[in-house]
């Protein structure tokens, strides 16, 4: 399968590191507005050709799959051109700045018989996948509620809060936090389904170029409820996922490998917290070690991206169901749209 990338920056590197490890993929071309950035990526990853004009690349290389790994404001046009050139598209989140563009894109891909996959990488981390496995096996019970809270300092210099050059994500409704909404929404969606209503609180605690730096939401969804949040001030950095089932509860930090379950035990009820605590301590100690070791090897916190891409390419080769379907993408983006701020900043 011939694969090409548009955008050769930081996230492209994560895609490339994964793609070069997958069988049956030819890294055919890469495109970036900066010739040196494109050429350097081509040299580093042994990519067949590099371009600065994505249309020229699509025309000349005719890739089977295109990864769109540019800043979000350019995704729509690049993904649309790629679909029109007959390629399946893997697009970084957020797929498009607006829901209308997303629906246009999904419609165009459908008409062309191509697939559109948005990168919900954290959904494919080991922890959410293990929780899903237990839900599927019945041991977890039906999910009643899910909490997802990202605590991440995005106010430091050089990133979203760069005072010298405005970050492209700041043009999104909600600013930098909206860049993370697909993570929150995709996790809520997989555990409690499409949303019905959402109530949000957007606020700003610290002085910075960001329009907002705190976000909370309560979502009523088809199979349960979700509490979603983003905090730029709470430290240390963490990505908490808590899933509440009728028989079990799960807690994971997706920036680490920590995943604990609390459920029924074959002990007298008063002793349950004692044995649960012992077991949780053991699991957390083990997770501390695996979190340390994965700093030296493998994709680290991008393990979900590797899993998502592996499954996507397998499905494309087998012509089987994709891990992220067009229906998922539309439903997640509808939730994202409902989470965006709809009033002027405070």
């Amino acid at each position: 399968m011939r694969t090409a990338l548009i955008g050769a920056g930081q996230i492209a590197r994560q895609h490339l590191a994964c793609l070069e490890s997958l069988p049956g993929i030819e890294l055919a071309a890469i495109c970036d507005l900066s010739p040196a950035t494109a050429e350097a990526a081509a040299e580093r990853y042994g990519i067949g050709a590099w371009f600065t004009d994505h249309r020229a690349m699509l025309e000349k290389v005719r890739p089977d799959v295109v990864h769109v790994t540019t800043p979000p404001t350019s995704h729509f046009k690049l993904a649309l051109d790629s679909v029109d050139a007959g390629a399946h598209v893997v697009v970084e989140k957020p797929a498009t700045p607006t829901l209308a563009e997303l629906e246009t894109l999904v419609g165009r891909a459908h008409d062309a018989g191509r697939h559109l996959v948005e990168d919900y990488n954290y959904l494919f981390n080991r922890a959410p996948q293990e929780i899903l496995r237990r839900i599927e096996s019945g041991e977890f019970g039906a999910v009643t509620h899910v909490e997802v809270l990202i605590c991440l300092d995005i106010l430091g210099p050089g990133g979203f809060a760069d005072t010298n050059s405005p970050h492209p994500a700041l043009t999104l409704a909600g600013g930098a936090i909206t860049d993370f909404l697909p993570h929150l929404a995709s996790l809520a969606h997989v555990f409690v389904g499409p949303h019905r209503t959402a109530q949000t609180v957007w606020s700003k605690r610290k002085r910075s170029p960001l329009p907002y730096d705190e976000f909370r939401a309560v979502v009523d969804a088809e199979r349960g409820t979700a509490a979603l949040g983003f905090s730029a001030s709470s430290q240390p950095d963490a990505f908490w996922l808590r899933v509440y089932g009728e028989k079990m509860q799960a807690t994971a930090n997706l920036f680490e490998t920590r995943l604990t379950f609390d459920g029924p035990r074959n002990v007298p009820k008063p002793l349950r917290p004692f044995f649960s605590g012992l077991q949780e301590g053991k699991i957390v100690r083990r997770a501390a070690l695996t979190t340390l070791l994965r700093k030296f090897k493998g994709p680290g916190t991008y393990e979900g991206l590797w899993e998502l891409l592996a499954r996507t390419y397998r499905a494309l080769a087998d012509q089987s169901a994709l891990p992220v379907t067009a229906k998922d993408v539309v439903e997640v983006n509808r939730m994202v749209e409902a989470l965006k701020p709809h009033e002027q900043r405070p």
Partner: protein
Amino acid sequence: MKALVTGANGFLGRHVVDALLARGIEVRAMVRPAARLEGLGWPASVDVFRADLRTSRELPRAFEGVDVLIHLAAVISGGEDAQFAGTVAGTERLLDAMATVACRRLVLCSSFSVYNYSAVRGTLDEDSPLHQVPDVYARDGYTVAKWWQERVTRRFAEQHGWDLTVLRPGFIWGREHGYLAAMGQQFGQHHLVIGPLTRVPMTHVENCADVFALAAVDPRARGRTLNIVDGRGERIWTSLSDYMRGSGQTGWRLPVPYWLAIMMVRLAYATVFRTATKVPSILMPNRFESRLKPLRFENGRLREVLGWTPPLDHQQCLARTYGPAVSVRAERLYQAPLIETQA
């Protein structure tokens, strides 16, 4: 004569501005939009141009009336991609702008990091081997970015027939920059001194800046690539002692012979880290060598081409670095406000 200096408020840049002014050269100082210039004491004659090389659309305007570009700007912090975007893509945008104007003279600040230390034996000079593709990509982000910056600049110069001088400073030191990566590995206030007798390729920031100002005006510099070191360099142990004494630091210094340290690093790499994808720089043999390999350094080419000798001797450099703060410009008493050009 007017010089456009990028990265003008950086550690080297502010001294290059001083050195240019001292030679009577007009300066347009390019700084980032949010850069704070209080304390630099630049005179009103310094024309400040605010722009970010990554995104500014006004870069051609920065070259108006400029005879020589002194390109110092580079991103030295953040991840590898941020460094590449800021240093390399930023240079592409700057030189794209230069290609639209009349300026044809360019002095680039490159780095010793472009040399492949692993392949150098004995003396490192301008003829020493450079990194090659694909091995360069196994190096740290700073090295990749500086290597690419020089590559991009040479391509532009060749394509447009510009007069290019590439200056490659060794470790630049000075006030508040006394500690150098070549001094070993720091653990809190304690130091592992690897190869204590190894000499460090150093250049004091004011000496280094003087070379840039000289290269900007001296036609003999055109088309040349020159390393900048003040001399053969001080030994690591001595430099570290100066640093600790000067900065009032206390702590243990544990000397380790270089051969023993590199042997241990190679062993660790071969047995544990070879298959690892992310390894601390100090544990990767090629990066370890780039920081610490004992080589000889000299500035023969610089002396020969430009007749340069360091204006400050080592004792003066120590006094400037660790002694009481002396304003370089104290005697000039510039009081007038800066003129700023908003990009």
